[in-house]
């Protein structure tokens, strides 16, 4: 696709202006993480720390057992990631590439799980997990990911699967392929972008999840980073310099994951080659 110079220039300008606005919260976080308390709150705000308080990071990260928190978070995040990608991509296949009676009704029923405010299901869910004996373990945070990984992800993948021409499946059936082979060899490779988006979202969601660990964990040796961050905040008073430094340290891996991850859906796959 060719783009005229004028349009490219206009596009650049728009991108730079928008990026300028969107980077403000992140810059704010970074600069606050390097300031002392009084400078964080100076109004109008200052952007360059004077002096640079690199020690904020050291103080924040040694204040609480962040190595334990990091280990716990890693276990949860990767378990959730694998489960979500596996089961949501399989389920989405069943909701889009196989025709069966009641399929769309079942899908509609699953959609309703997003429509009831969590505030009223927290307690029943908690009681359920507790009855099963899994209170104060990672199971409540991980296991659901292996059962569909959330309707959000299934719905998202379903939408992408539906854009793949049916001719592909038909051709494969004629060649004697099974559903599973079609899923593995046609649908998965063609939906790479969407699968990576699902992986990315599930990583970030479970990395930043605070409510789940708060409700289901009790022992502090199981706590996660997101839960640890709250400890700087307190209920009535916050240690803002440490909170900001710890937040920055927790956010950084997300930024790196994103920078690396986005490369894979940057270049779209072209259907043309396959379509022939």
């Amino acid at each position, binding site marked *: 696709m060719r783009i005229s110079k004028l349009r490219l220039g206009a596009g650049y300008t728009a991108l730079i202006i928008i990026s300028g606005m969107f980077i403000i919260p992140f810059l704010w976080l970074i600069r606050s993480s390097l300031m002392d*308390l*009084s400078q*964080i*709150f*100076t*109004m109008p705000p200052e952007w360059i720390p004077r002096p640079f308080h690199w020690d904020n990071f050291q103080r924040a990260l040694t*204040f*609480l057992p962040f190595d334990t928190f990091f280990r*716990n978070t890693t*276990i949860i995040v*990767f*378990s959730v990631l*694998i*489960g979500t990608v*596996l*089961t949501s991509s*399989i389920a989405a296949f069943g909701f889009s590439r196989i025709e069966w009676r009641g399929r769309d009704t079942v899908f509609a029923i699953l959609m309703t799980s997003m429509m009831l405010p969590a505030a009223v299901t*927290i*307690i029943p869910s*908690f*009681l359920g997990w*507790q009855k099963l004996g899994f*209170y*104060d*373990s*990672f*199971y409540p945070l*991980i*296991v659901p990911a*292996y059962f569909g990984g959330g309707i959000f992800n299934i719905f998202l993948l379903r939408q992408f699967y539906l854009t793949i021409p049916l001719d592909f499946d038909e051709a494969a059936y004629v060649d004697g392929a*099974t*559903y*599973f*082979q079609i899923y593995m060899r046609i649908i998965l490779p063609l939906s790479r972008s969407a699968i990576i988006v699902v992986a990315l979202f599930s990583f970030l969601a479970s990395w930043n999840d605070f*409510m789940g660990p*708060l*409700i289901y964990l*009790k*022992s*502090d*040796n*199981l706590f996660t980073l997101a839960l640890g961050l*709250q*400890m*700087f*905040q*307190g*209920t*009535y*008073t*916050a*240690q803002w310099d*440490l909170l900001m430094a710890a937040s920055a340290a927790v956010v950084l891996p997300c930024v790196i994951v994103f920078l690396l991850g986005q490369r894979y859906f940057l270049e779209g796959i072209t259907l043309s080659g396959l379509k022939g």
Partner: protein
Amino acid sequence: MLRQRKSMSVLIALMMLLVTILTSCSKANTASENTASPSASGDEGSNESITLRMSVWGAPAEVAAYKFAIKKFEAQFPNVKVDLQHIATDYDTKLTTMVAGNDVPDIAMMESGSIAFPLGEQGKFYNLQEFLDTDPDINVDKLVPNIMYSLEPGNVIGIGPGPESFGLFYNEDIFKDAGISPPPAKVSEAWTWDEFVDVAKQLTIDNKGRNAKDPDFDPKNIKQYGVNASTWWGIYSNFIYSNGGDFISADGKTFGLNQPEAVEAIQKVADLMNVHHVSPSPVQAKNIPATNVALQTKKVAMAIDGQWTTANLAQSKFNFNVGVLPVMKEPVTTVVAGMFSIFKSTKHPQESWELLKALLDPEAAIDMITSGTWMPSYKDWYTDPELIAKWTEGLDSRPSGYKDAIIDVILTKSHQTPTGYVKNFNKIMDVVNPALDKVWLGQQTAQEAMDAIAPKAQAQVKGRRDIPQ
């Protein structure tokens, strides 16, 4: 077709395996934890080791102080181990789910403005009066007034680890540079409201260096506010009480904030913002940081705040001090405090009571007290000069005005927080707060706003906890 079924089942089996492996890492930790904390049977008096669970909120420094007090307690009671659960945010949500799951701690820090009374009303807490009546070490007379919370007279659901009162904190250098004498510390010399407003005007400076008394003063560009009086009820309640008003009538039957005394107090606080321009409006206040930073950076010259702010002030290296609040009619300070409550479900009520006592003991909580966060809960720490010296002398958190402005007021001039005695306080305030928003923004007078909602607020009035029903 067969192959397909096989590959699916292999895949599912693999998934299950993966979950098991990954989560088993986490279970290993809890297993060792659980064996260390068995819920021991209630065998009293035996040397069998027991574990008490206690939940608190608080900033890291406060948690460190709790741990210190607990260590002292454990040294005294070698068979008792305390398992401290720190729930930093969303404390009520977490505690509510724990109650739902019958997994409550033995002893918990509670807040009178949130779920303490709802829990108490359902009989979830021990009546601490029963312990107080028989305890050889402490009784009601030993405790500072207004730190006990009662469901009704004689039914104490919680005792605070110490009172928290309000004072007028200020930056000494600002007063020195302006050549103005700082807020008096002694109650007998307290400023009248007009004197207070006058000083605040002199110390409110716009970006051209003019103060609020200057006819050219520009209220849109204020560099330094004379005072920061936030719109939190904790702050303005001081002045309502000082002016002889209340949130609710003495018989607990009538809504009180539309009565002349309360209205006048609210109006005067609102006038600080909208008429005199000496205190940031709720809008401007969003950019005023915590008191210690606001005073240090000279965003404000004085700040009306709770005494707990001294803990942060002590760590900010500048010359701060504290004076007594300006007086409308009577000198009064509201006392707010958290509380410790003992859950009915505990298997070890006596040990829990001992732990509660240990947390009340100023000697054990000395770090919290000297750091500035708490004040002692025992009366004699306010009267015995030797004990007073322990927590007020030579400490960064206790400036020279502290003894007169804060300590002397507590024993005789204090008033309980409205959350402690007004039934249904939150629901009443759900009606009041939206109306007050208009008062703070200068869109309505206090009288108009309170009269407008008085019938609706009256519908939420359910009586008082401090008078017999």
